[in-house]
């Protein structure tokens, strides 16, 4: 008997997104029924229902811990907003400080807005650092499902946007893109660091 391969994308989604204890058995059951003649459309419907049910299970079992970790991560983001406002207020001083400190290079840098870019980079670094902290916090406080926690933080950031300021060196569209881009990069880096630390500990225990 030849093996009838079930839809790959659906299987991939099930493998990577399903939350639940008996994931492998559920996948095995669906593959077996598909092998017995069920259609690909049936397989897709089963996968989507399983993902929905898994999401309900995740909310049931992880809801409170997830909500608490999201609150803590948002604490870091709001702290960053205050730090960022302070940075923006003092960015003029920083500009002149850099101009003085760079001495003979300053005229050349000024010609290409170089010092302004440097100040912007400092702001961007602070932003990435704070969002990395929030990504790290959410993943550390919610160790059972770190990927779900990080995704939830990113979604929450898109839903409730933080009123933020930054030094304008590019157009309005790019401004928003750089801001969200650096925030996203920060969260992913922080989350990755927390996950890497977790797996390092697991290895040390074995």
């Amino acid at each position, binding site marked *: 008997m030849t093996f009838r391969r079930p839809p790959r994308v659906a299987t991939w989604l099930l493998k990577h997104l399903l939350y639940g*204890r008996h994931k492998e058995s559920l996948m095995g059951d669906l593959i*077996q029924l598909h*092998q017995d003649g069920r259609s690909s459309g049936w397989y897709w419907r089963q996968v989507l229902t399983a993902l929905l049910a898994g999401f309900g299970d995740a909310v049931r*079992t992880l809801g409170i811990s997830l909500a608490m970790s999201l609150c803590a991560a948002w604490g870091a983001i709001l702290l960053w907003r205050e730090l960022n406002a302070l940075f923006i207020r003092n960015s003029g001083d920083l500009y002149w400080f850099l101009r003085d400190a760079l001495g003979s290079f300053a005229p050349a840098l000024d010609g290409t807005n170089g010092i302004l870019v440097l100040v912007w980079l400092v702001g961007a670094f602070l932003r990435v650092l704070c969002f990395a902290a929030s990504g790290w916090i959410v993943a550390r406080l919610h160790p059972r499902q770190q990927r779900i926690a990080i995704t939830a933080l990113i979604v929450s950031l898109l839903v409730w946007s933080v009123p933020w300021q930054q030094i304008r060196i590019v157009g309005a569209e790019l401004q928003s893109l750089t801001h969200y881009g650096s925030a996203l990069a920060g969260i992913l880096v922080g989350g990755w660091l927390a996950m890497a630390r977790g797996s390092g500990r697991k290895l040390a225990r074995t």
Partner: protein
Amino acid sequence: MSKRTYLSQTELMIMLAIMRLGRNGYGIPIAQEIAARTGRELAIGVVYSTLWRLEDDALVRSEVGESTAARGGRAKTYFQLTAKGVKQVREARQSLQQLWDGIPQLKGSLT
């Protein structure tokens, strides 16, 4: 773990199906047994989600079984009711029976 005071209809059906299947109670036969006896098609994902909830409440226990090539090498998980689960099913039956009894409109409706 909080004490269970009731079973949902889906939970009760799955637990009864497990009891009927004996040692062959895994996802597919459970869904098929329910479909054959009640006409209700439960998605496999819903069956597992419910089983997980029941397992969390120690009403069922699971055991990993054999894997086959037709399942892409994935093992089956067999489920059985615990003593607590059997007690809970019995209690559910009694409560429903007490509600059933004495309703004139329902008398003889099953025959």
